[in-house]
């Protein structure tokens, strides 16, 4: 009965979302509708939350008469994994997606009350329409509340063992908050285009929302990468898999967007381009949902597939993207940018940032969709694009991005006297020396990619530190946020350079008592024991190194599903991870063992967390709160331009 309540709540939420789509647009011209609009936005959130809570309760209470619960849970599953199993497969994860969309919508309705209703109402109308589409899809093609009656199974089929992990608890919610948060920028851009007021004020409202969504997306992607690293057992942290690319493409677009928004807010330039990026970022998030959930591409972690869902999602994608870009095509030509700049200005550097990120995005998009296009063009021939393709093109672009990023914080709007860059030039020389010396000192070898990454990363950090010192005492939160995010980029860059070029791996055949050496560390297979987990049994291999580090690698056998899972033994360190996985037991009783030595791999995720933290810190700048109050009365077009470097990016 309670399950039907959840189902019913979702249906009511759909009606409210559809209502919101209508009243939002009415409120744009007639403020009398604003009250009802807000009530619908909040009511919709309450209903979807109720619906979601019901599904969680069905999981926690082991209600296997619900088909989705029966397929993805088991009574032996620990309770916290029963909660996270709610979003462990397609139907429930889409309900989570819908819940988050409703959450963002309610947030916009409440926090945006002081915006002019011509924009606020339309933005809520767009969000309502999107929510309605999501709920319609949920109820018609992926209903998590379907029952297995009259004969429910006595126990569930269990959650995929790969997903019985902390990673599943946090990764999808963070990722979806990021994905769906980009819908706010999308809705604001569509609303501003409709209202014909694509101005600096619009950019100022959009920036905090975009920053928050981007920060969550950054965290979500980093967590996913970390999870894949320790859970898949191969020691890899990025595979250029279509599903990873699906989350990475909106991130690239959103990264370009937050930089382009800076120019639009401060200088009134790039307006049309900024709107284009705002529409693109969320369109790519929808494309990602389609790629992940339709199963059109080979991926290591796609959902179970169903063609009907693919078609439905494709329709949502086509309507949202088609509608948005038709609107853009109709309105963009009338948007004029009237700011001027010349020479090496901050505008020019941000333009370069956008050009590089857009090219990188195009490269990833091409590599991801090429197999689909090829199959369609040849009538069914299947191909896949290997990771070397992505690395060869993407890496040089990111190094170029880092070079521009290094000098951007010290550049000025409009025009930067070249002598301002003089010190940065000397710093580049010093950084280059460090970039060459550090790998030689720590790894005893020189590799071009790692040296370039180390040099550029150091350069970024040194220039930032010097600039912070010069403006000490007058640092705003938005400047510090920028500095922190850029430092994060540098940290990730150095980590990626080092770990991709200096990692070593070895597959060895080892019996208990035997030892093998990798990169100067001797690993001894000390013992093999049987351990019992809550819902699995495992063989645990204990490995010790000559430096006294102990690693436990497990091979788990899950009773309910009969699946086998590898749990890596990792000694995590700031400078280096030691990583051991048990492969398979060989006929003579020895084991196939994989050893990995991963220098600076933690820096990859640490940098991402710094980036996300920077994004959030910038939003906390009091400027955004002041502006919201001011926006009510004025139709301020271009704000006075602060010339000081600490005005932030």
């Amino acid at each position: 009965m309670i399950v039907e309540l959840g189902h019913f709540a979702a249906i009511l939420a759909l009606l409210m979302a559809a209502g919101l789509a209508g009243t939002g647009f009415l409120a744009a011209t007639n403020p009398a509708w604003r009250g009802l609009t807000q009530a619908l936005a909040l009511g919709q959130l309450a209903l979807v939350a109720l619906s979601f809570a019901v599904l969680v309760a069905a999981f926690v209470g082991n209600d296997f008469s619900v088909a989705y619960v029966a397929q993805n849970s088991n009574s032996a599953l620990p309770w916290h994994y029963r909660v996270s199993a709610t979003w462990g497969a397609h139907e429930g994860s889409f309900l989570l997606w819908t819940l988050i969309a409703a959450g963002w919508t309610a947030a916009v309705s409440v926090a945006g009350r002081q915006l002019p209703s011509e924009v606020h109402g339309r933005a809520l109308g767009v969000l309502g329409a999107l929510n309605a589409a999501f709920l319609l899809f949920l109820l018609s093609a992926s209903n998590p509340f379907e029952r297995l009656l009259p004969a429910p199974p006595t126990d569930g089929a269990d959650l995929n063992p790969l997903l019985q992990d902390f990673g599943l608890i946090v990764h999808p919610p963070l990722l979806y908050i990021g994905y769906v948060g980009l819908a706010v920028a999308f809705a604001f851009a569509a609303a501003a285009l409709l209202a014909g007021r694509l101005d600096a004020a619009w950019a100022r409202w959009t920036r905090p929302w975009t920053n928050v969504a981007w920060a969550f997306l950054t965290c979500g992607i980093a967590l996913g990468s970390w999870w894949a690293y320790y859970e898949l057992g191969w020691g890899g942290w990025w595979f250029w898999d279509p599903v990873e690319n699906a989350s990475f493409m909106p991130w690239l677009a959103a990264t370009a967007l937050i930089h382009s928004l800076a120019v639009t807010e401060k200088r009134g330039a790039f307006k049309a381009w900024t709107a284009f990026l705002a529409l693109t970022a969320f369109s790519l998030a929808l494309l990602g949902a389609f790629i992940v959930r339709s199963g059109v591409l080979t991926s290591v972690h796609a959902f179970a597939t169903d063609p009907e869902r693919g078609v439905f999602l494709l329709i949502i994608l086509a309507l949202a993207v088609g509608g948005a870009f038709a609107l853009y095509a109709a309105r963009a030509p009338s948007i004029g940018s009237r700011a001027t700049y010349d020479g090496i200005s901050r505008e020019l550097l941000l333009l370069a940032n956008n050009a590089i990120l857009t090219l990188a995005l195009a490269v990833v998009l091409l590599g991801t969709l090429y197999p689909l296009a090829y199959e369609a063009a040849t009538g069914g021939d299947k191909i896949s694009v290997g990771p070397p393709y992505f690395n060869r093109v993407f890496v040089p672009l990111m190094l170029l991005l880092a070079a521009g990023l290094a000098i951007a914080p010290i550049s000025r709007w409009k025009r930067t006297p070249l002598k301002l860059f003089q010190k940065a030039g000397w710093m580049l020389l010093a950084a280059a020396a460090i970039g060459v010396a550090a790998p030689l000192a720590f790894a005893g070898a020189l590799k071009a990619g790692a040296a370039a990454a180390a040099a550029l990363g150091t350069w970024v950090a040194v220039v930032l530190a010097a600039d912070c010192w010069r403006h000490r005492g007058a640092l705003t939160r938005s400047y510090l946020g920028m500095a922190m995010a850029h430092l994060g980029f540098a940290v990730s860059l150095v980590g990626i350079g080092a770990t991709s070029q200096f990692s070593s791996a070895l597959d060895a055949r080892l019996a208990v008592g035997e030892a093998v050496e990798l990169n100067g560390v001797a690993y001894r297979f000390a013992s093999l024991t049987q351990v019992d987990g809550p819902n699995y049994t495992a063989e645990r291999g204990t490995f010790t190194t000559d430096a006294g580090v102990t690693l436990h690698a497990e091979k788990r056998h899950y009773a309910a599903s009969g699946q086998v899972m590898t749990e890596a033994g990792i000694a995590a360190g700031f400078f280096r991870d030691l990583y051991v996985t048990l492969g398979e037991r060989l006929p003579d009783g020895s084991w196939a063992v994989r050893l990995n030595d991963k220098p600076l791999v933690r820096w990859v995720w640490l940098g991402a967390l710094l980036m996300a933290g920077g994004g959030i810190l910038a939003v906390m700048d009091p400027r955004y709160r002041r502006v919201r109050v001011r926006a009510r009365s004025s139709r301020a077009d271009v704000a006075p331009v602060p010339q000081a470097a600490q005005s932030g990016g």
Partner: protein
Amino acid sequence: MKTMNRQRRARLAATALLLVGAAATVALTLAALNENVNAFHPPASIVGGEAPVNTSIRAGGMVAEGSVQRDATGLAVSFVVTDHQGADYPVRYHGILPDLFREGQGVLVTGELTAAGVFEAREVLARHDENYMPPELADMAVHQGAAPR
């Protein structure tokens, strides 16, 4: 007037730089794409000689029952991939096989076919859970009218 000129020059330079950069990226991209595309070949195409030799390709099928042979001392392994319709070919691999690798189940391999007709795999993928199957294998299953389990 002078600033206008300077500004126009700067914009022209920026645009030119952008175009050159974009062109370089496109050229690099197409070259990289050309070299890193792996075509998928079903067993019949491997056995029938349609698949190119010494070129990186993807192949797949079912692991034949009783065909998996581990080397006695190292980590070399060989097995036979079949479509259960008469097309079989041997695969050699060195390293650790995925957890879900089983005889009688679907497998997807990336590597090169030698002139002798042996597939030297550098990557072996198995289905990663009960419900998910790579589209390549799913299509084959549809053609055969049976799910490869």
